């Protein structure tokens, strides 16, 4: 199979990730830090070294600011539910994922309101102005995707974060599609929280995510329970990262994530970005030459996009195109709304959805060409089918 569904989760994983997961299951089968024996301590060391790797990737000195979560959604929920109180207002971008929209809809019942700032592709000034226009006296938090998971459009998040700080507003970055794919340095970034998946551009296993708390403001914990620390106390510890990590952690997943992050750091996010963007541009350019293929963004470029390309074939349902790519050509993509109906609404594709192809470091130019060749064949097959259906081939 040729895999272009890397926006959902990257596949394959680097061999070191696979080895680390297997090794953790077979050799680190102890609850980290809880029990006092050597295997328990070794498991705790694994968590610690992963925290160090993640902190270093984002330019941070303090590994305790790295909190492990189940996924990016859990990290975002921790910020949303842990920071916001009745009467607060939030601003989000018009390209957000349901991981942001749905918790905010739920928060409406608790007296939290939110506004949507329209993103204008290729015009950062307008996008920033739209954010500024949505600010209110009670705006507590801005949540902003670094890059759309559907269209790959990057937002001017550094400038939006700076604007937030000028206005005393907390800023949360959803880096689900950008962490490991583009360089991110949290030092002096003005970004208070970063949420990301561990299993996408960081190449860890599914079931891993990260919340980075880069702020003096710490959210309330979503869940409370055993942390292996302050066990005599009834109250949840306030110390980081324990405050947010109650219960037995995903040691095998985090062991894999550590190797995934090492893989990214060895290659360098800037090098990864350059390679993947080359492939994305190739994909976009080749698709743009196929009649009846609809593209929705400007050509993907360094600095303004991540390597995500969304398209449709005129007159065909996106799910049908994805099915044909899978069944006839062995190519995996994702179709539909990609859990981001707001982004589709913004780009006018909320009825049809789109076919999305996302590249990873494990894709190459030949695979891109196979994908575009397959799309070309599907267009021709569909033309023939339409002609037969309408009877025009008989004339």
């Amino acid at each position: 199979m040729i895999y272009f569904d890397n926006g959902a989760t990257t596949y394959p994983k680097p061999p070191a990730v696979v080895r680390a997961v297997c090794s953790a299951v077979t050799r680190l089968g102890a609850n980290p830090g809880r029990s006092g024996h050597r295997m328990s301590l070794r498991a705790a060391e694994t968590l610690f070294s992963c925290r160090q790797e993640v902190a270093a990737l984002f330019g941070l000195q303090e590994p305790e600011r790295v909190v492990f979560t189940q996924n990016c959604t859990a990290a975002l929920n921790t910020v949303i539910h842990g920071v916001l109180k009745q009467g607060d207002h939030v601003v989000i971008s018009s390209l957000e994922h349901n991981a942001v929209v749905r918790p905010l809809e739920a928060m409406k019942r608790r007296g939290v309101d939110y506004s949507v700032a329209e993103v204008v592709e290729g015009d950062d000034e307008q996008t920033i102005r739209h954010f500024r226009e949505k600010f209110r006296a009670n705006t507590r938090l801005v949540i902003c995707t670094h890059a759309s998971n559907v269209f790959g459009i990057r937002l001017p998040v550094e400038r939006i974060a700076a604007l937030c700080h000028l206005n005393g507003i907390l800023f949360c970055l959803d880096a689900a599609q950008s962490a490991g794919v583009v360089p991110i340095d949290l030092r002096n970034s003005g970004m208070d929280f970063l949420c990301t998946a561990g299993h996408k551009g960081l190449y860890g296993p599914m079931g891993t995510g990260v919340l980075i708390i880069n702020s003096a403001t710490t959210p309330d914990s979503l869940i409370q329970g055993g942390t292996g620390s302050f066990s005599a106390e009834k109250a949840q510890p306030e110390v980081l990262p324990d405050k947010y990590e109650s219960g037995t952690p995903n040691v095998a997943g985090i062991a894999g994530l550590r190797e995934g992050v090492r893989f990214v750091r060895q290659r360098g996010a800037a090098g990864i970005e350059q390679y993947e963007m080359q492939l994305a541009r190739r994909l976009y350019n080749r698709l743009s030459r196929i009649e009846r293929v609809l593209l929705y963004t400007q050509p993907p470029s360094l600095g303004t996009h991540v390597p995500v390309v969304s398209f449709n074939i005129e007159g065909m349902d996106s799910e049908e195109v994805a099915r044909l790519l899978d069944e006839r050509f062995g190519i995996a993509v994702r179709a539909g709304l990609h859990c981001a109906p707001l982004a589709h609404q913004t780009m006018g594709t909320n009825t049809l959805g789109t076919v999305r192809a996302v590249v990873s470091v494990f894709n190459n130019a030949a695979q891109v060409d196979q994908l575009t060749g397959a799309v070309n064949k599907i267009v021709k097959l569909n033309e023939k089918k339409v002609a037969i259906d309408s009877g025009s081939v008989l004339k």
Partner: protein
Amino acid sequence: MENNLILFGSMTAMMRARDLLRKNGIRSATVRTPAAYRRGSCGYSLRVSRDIDRAVGMLKQQRIPVSGVAAVDAL
């Protein structure tokens, strides 16, 4: 020889402290915290035999949170 224990609220702080001390030439060993000091601890401490004041100063300077320091006779 007298042992000094540096106590921590989290494993992460303890491991970060251990690495920092090692980098600065101060030897320490990870040990289970004795019952008498376990309240307010992550359950592990660093045993430091020499340079305890310098070690604690270093941790403070790097803002690594320490729950306390205890002198114990034997472990």
